[in-house]
């Protein structure tokens, strides 16, 4: 039922693309990260909670229809529904049922509960499209509760030394997850414009601690604060006003010593909105799918593992999705531009 062509993942009988990277007639968007939600299509379909951000990024005047999780629509005889992916707010797996066969395209997902997005639910299916950003056995993420505890302890130590803490994470997803778990009794919380911009568009049910815009930061009065900023802020003069500060970076790549050192942060926190090795294996087994399509990440290695270990019919698929990239950050670049406008 699904085809992978030069526009994206195509559901032919329904006539709809999933996360197309070129303009098409109809597009279902799994989530609002900019490598999945791209510009130029005529009609979009996404989860309700994704829509404010999709509009922020692709323009307020786009044609977009919102769906709830589990709500089923019919497109040319294909039953289509969205299911929680646990990646970021509004992220969804797309379930497609046609002639007795079930296909699921998962977009990006994780099994950890981040207390921000609706947790991932495995869907029984015959064909499953998975990402493989961290599809190697060396990626075993620690319990997020411990990571959040470490972040607060780090903030507290800095605060006691009169230093600010700058914590880096994607503006959409990671930033809210960080904010949600900060302990406001330690000090003031500030947000970079790109993060504030996203926070404004979060669903009402998400309660985040009180934050102030970073532009209001006054050095003398606010020593010991924490500032939540996107990766694009690293190495820019924007950081200067917070001196002295310690820089912490939240990313799954922080599991690797080389990445921690090269990134030039003072601390690396292993916090990711993608699956690690165990999560990927668990999720794929839970779907019961026999046919697996492995996209962005270590796709050829991970597909071979699935074939060898679980005897699944797994193939790698070329896509233009980017995974968790702390280096070149399109989403954040867009948001910075928005901040300037």
């Amino acid at each position: 039922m699904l085809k992978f062509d030069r526009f994206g993942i195509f559901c032919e009988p329904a006539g709809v693309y999933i996360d197309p990277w070129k303009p098409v007639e109809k597009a279902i968007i799994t989530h609002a990260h900019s490598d999945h939600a791209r510009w130029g299509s005529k009609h979009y379909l996404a989860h309700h909670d994704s829509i404010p951000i999709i509009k922020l990024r692709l323009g307020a005047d786009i044609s977009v229809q919102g769906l709830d999780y589990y709500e089923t629509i019919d497109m040319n005889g294909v039953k289509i529904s969205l299911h929680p992916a646990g990646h970021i707010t509004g992220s969804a797996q797309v379930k497609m049922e046609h002639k007795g066969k079930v296909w699921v395209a998962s977009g990006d997902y994780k099994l950890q509960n981040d207390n921000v997005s609706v947790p991932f639910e495995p869907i029984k299916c015959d064909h499953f499209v998975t990402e493989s950003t961290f599809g190697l056995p060396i990626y075993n993420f620690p319990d997020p509760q411990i990571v959040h505890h470490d972040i607060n302890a780090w903030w507290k130590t800095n605060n006691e030394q009169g230093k600010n803490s700058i914590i880096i994470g994607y503006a959409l997803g990671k930033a809210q997850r960080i904010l949600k778990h900060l302990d406001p009794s330690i000090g003031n919380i500030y947000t970079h414009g790109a993060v504030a911009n996203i926070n404004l568009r979060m669903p009402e049910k998400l309660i985040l601690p009180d934050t102030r815009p970073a532009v209001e930061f006054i050095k003398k009065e606010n020593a010991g604060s924490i500032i939540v900023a996107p990766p694009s802020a690293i190495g820019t003069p924007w950081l200067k006003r917070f001196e002295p500060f310690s820089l912490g970076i939240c990313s799954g790549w922080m599991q690797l010593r080389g990445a921690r050192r090269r990134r030039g942060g003072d601390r690396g926190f292993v916090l990711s909105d993608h699956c690690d090795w165990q999560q990927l294996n668990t999720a794929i087994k839970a779907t019961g799918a026999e046919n697996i399509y492995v996209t962005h990440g270590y796709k050829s290695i991970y597909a071979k593992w699935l074939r060898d270990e679980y005897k699944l019919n797994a193939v790698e698929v070329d896509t233009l999705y980017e995974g968790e990239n702390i280096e070149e950050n399109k989403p954040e670049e867009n948001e910075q531009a928005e901040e300037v406008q």
Partner: protein
Amino acid sequence: MKKFAELYTAIDETTKTNAKVDALVHYFSEADEKDAIWCVALLIGKKPKRTIKTAELKSWCMELAGIEEWLFEESYHVVGDLAETITLALPPSKERKDFSLHGTMDKIMSLDKVSEEEKREYVQTTWNLLSTPERFVFNKLTTGSFRIGVSQQLVIKALAKQFHLDENIVSHRLTGKWDPVNVTLKGLLFSDNKNDDHSKPYPFYLAYQLEVPAEELGDLNEWQVERKYDGIRGQIIIRDKQLFVWSRGEELITEKFPEFNSLLNSLPDGTVIDGEILPMKDGKPLPFHVMQTRTSRKNLSKKILEDAPLMMMCYDLLELEYNDLRNESMNMRRTKLENLLSEAYAKMKDLPLVISPVLECKDWDEVKSERLKARECLCEGLMLKRKDSVYEVGRRKGNWWKWKVDALTVDGVLIYAQKGHGRRANLYTDYTFAIWDGEQLVPFTKAYSGLTDKELLQVDNWIKKNTIDKFGPVRSVKAELVFEIAFEGIQPSPRHKSGIALRFPRIARWRTDKSPNEANTKNDLLQLIQSLKV
């Protein structure tokens, strides 16, 4: 191991020297005596011999992780470090136990006497009781690849601070032969017996590359100009009628240089000379690769000794008649060195020592032109030393500068690419370059570093679109992009298809202005080798 791993992590995750020293002081203030001496030994690079093969560690890890070798290798390729790959691939441990550092080291050293089964048992049990940072340090220790981002200078600083000692004293006491198994830290630092170890070298004084125009160093009369030779920096020590030869890495290498045995008869007791050990014939240095063939041999046959005779190019005199001269001026030391050597020549004609000639230059322009002659003289450049400078400890700025000549360059065509490590795991960043041999492109070097992040992304993108073939992790690409490769040395190498081998190649820049047919040829490089010979 817990505290030691914490120390490791603290040092590893900062680039700030003060933070590193603080972490060290903190460790020394609370570590067990026996652990502390091991810590110092490991920090300054004293490694016990390896008792476990890395292949064994790898297979025990794969067993626990439930993965096959191909997947381990793929992971290793991404991580780029074996100890870390093992650390991360192992399932996270559920129980914890804090082992002492010295106990762990004793155990590791004793493993050469036990069966493989017993080794496996020990290593796997230990893995299951360690946290991730502890595991990493443990694996580094067992694979014999323990290294940490502190200079000896910082360790000295921290010890001096913690034990209220003078840095120079600490530094001298740490040098030379000692074994963490049979000394204590206090015993080592507070031993007042000057005669305890006669083999000890002085810490080397090292220079930084000159960063400003030479004129800014002021009056040339205040400077001594010498060549910077390309050999093994070393100290020759004669004390108690014994000879010791030390390398800059503080390795005792006396046995490798039987030429120097004769010095016992020609130099007085209580002498320490700092210089460069070089292969020389008829008073002229030979190319560096002659030295390499010499040092790589275990048995020094007569033929090798004849083909690659070694001498020391003497730079400095650090001790004379058991007196430490380091606080005297360069001028004074130089005069004493000259006198010493002429007396020694009088005793022995074919003395394996030469004094490093001082270049007499009228002005800085002459110094500059001397620098450009470096390659003809098989040198790396010049050394500029203030005539009134004392002999300092470690790498210091101000009184001594090295002034190397610019690297050599060659334009090569990108033909193969491989993915990088770590955060660059998804980017093609490891390149192989080719030069023309007639109509054919032959690979001649690999290079990894040198491009900006932005360029890396561009090249990566280009590679993905211009792949001709994939084999394993390697892609061959269209011969289209030209890069300038900088390197420090070049030598003939029959093992390579191109017939040449480069020393320290790196990417100098992306020549977007050049087409592949403008790249260099094998002939160009062979000519370069010829032109560098005297």
